[in-house]
């Protein structure tokens, strides 16, 4: 963390303490700062948008009602992510227990989709890589996908991810490493192809 980030974290913690003392504006700032990110994260677990909204609502109501009991978290973001995750999991599992579903349930499945290529260069190679990567992404386990999301979308460290998803740091490292390996292998084939293509192009020139 650089100085600027440290300062930001300090301001956030100060704001959190104000909220715990009953400052409604500080509370509202937390909501405004995190609603979009929590919404985005939550919607990766279920296709039911109103369920995610309900869970965020629950999360913030609980925060306010138990504000005096909370300890100041080391990181507000990680604390909120972890809490939302727990609430969401509880709701989804209780829903599953109450009723046996007719078709296979896709809930709890982490949906991670690559955004379309930023640069719309219609180069075959780019498209092919995008396709390969998308395919490889689908092969990953739910946890691997979630870890990738937290690592590369949210920019969490291995340690922070381990706190949010409640596994060891070592386990988190392995999770991300394995996921990257799968993704890398999918692209490797293309790299090999390109290299092969270049060699093939080059050979006739060698006497």
């Amino acid at each position, binding site marked *: 963390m650089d100085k600027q980030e440290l300062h930001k974290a300090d301001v956030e913690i100060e704001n959190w303490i104000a909220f715990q003392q009953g400052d409604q504006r500080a509370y509202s700032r937390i*909501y405004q700062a995190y609603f979009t990110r929590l919404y985005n994260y939550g919607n990766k677990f279920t296709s039911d948008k109103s369920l995610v*909204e309900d869970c965020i609502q629950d999360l913030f*109501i609980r925060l306010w009602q138990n504000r005096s009991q909370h300890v100041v978290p080391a990181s507000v973001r990680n604390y909120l992510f972890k809490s939302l995750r727990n609430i969401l999991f509880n709701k989804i599992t209780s829903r599953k227990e109450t*009723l046996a579903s*007719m078709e296979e349930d896709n809930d709890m499945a982490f949906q991670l989709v690559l955004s379309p290529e930023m640069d719309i260069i219609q180069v075959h190679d780019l498209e092919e890589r995008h396709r390969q990567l998308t395919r490889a992404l689908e092969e990953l386990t739910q946890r691997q996908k979630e870890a990738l999301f937290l690592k590369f979308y949210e920019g969490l460290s291995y340690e922070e991810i381990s706190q949010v998803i409640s596994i060891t740091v070592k386990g988190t490292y392995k999770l991300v*490493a394995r996921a990257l390996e799968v993704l890398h292998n999918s692209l490797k084939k293309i790299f090999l192809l390109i290299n092969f293509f270049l060699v093939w192009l080059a050979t006739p020139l060698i006497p």
Partner: protein
Amino acid sequence: MKKEIQAYEHYTVTEFLEDEYFQQWVRQPDQETDEFWHEWLKKYPHKLGEITEARSLLERLQFQTDTPSDESRNRVWQNIVAANQVFDQQLESASTGKVITLYSFRYLRQLAAAVVLLVIGAAGYLFLQNSTQQQYDTAFGEVKTVVLPDGSTVKLNANSTLRFPAKWTPAGLREVWLEGEAYFSVKHTQNHQRFVVHLTDSTQVEVLGTKFTAFQRKRGTRVVLASGKVKFDIERVTGNREVYLKPGEMIESMEKSSDFAKKATDPTQFSAWIERKLVFHNVPLPEVLAVLEETYGMQITVADSSLLQKRVWGSAPMEDEGVVLKGLSKTFGWRFTRKGNQVLLSGSGK
């Protein structure tokens, strides 16, 4: 996190990929990381291939974002604030209540003053309170939670509307108007305020504090009680009628039967939609189709009237509007064709 410059000498592509300092350079570069890695490449130029390969993967990991609408951001916030206000008020009244019992005589004078202030305050509150109504609607396939001014909660089923005054007086009637279907968890207040759900012009449900499902659509009216006690009022030209329900009892007047009949039932059957499930326990097909029409806005036509005799068992997640139709066609071997919200259901043919 940052290692010595030599530490990376024998790194493979995979090792670069997993390294947080390398990731940081690709994903959130700053001057420091930029300088470090350029310096490093000058020292180990033969590693350019590995670096490029690792970079090209990490650069590609851009994931899609689910962006909420402003409407949902505001609605969720309003619900939160409403629930918290109620909580804070209860907390306050609980603590002031304690003070009065402990020091009631010594502080009689202050108490009298406080009462006067309270009365003035209440009058002002009543004066300020305007008749503005709050309205909540749900789209097809959507379920919403609404927190009422008294902290009671209402789960609003798909394709439904709930209206109530924006503010309630602390002593007056708690009134809401429902079109569609909703599950009420009504809080019992200390002063036993009545809570009334208006269904049609001539029917209403009255409670003090309980949990129940109320249904009011074209098809008819139904109230199912999960816990507590409710009074169901029917206004008639021939004289008004009051029916009391006990937990596990329901009263309904659906389609053909014009009169209200009370019967015993399993209340969970009528509140499965809260869990965003459609549940049918031995339900006649016409009713199943009516539920699909109400929930998803489909218009279902049945080509073969013999199908209507069937009864249906099953449950399905609400999010996917096709599941029930698919389930029916699989179980009974029926076919359905769909154009927009028009659905045609036909038998197996042969």
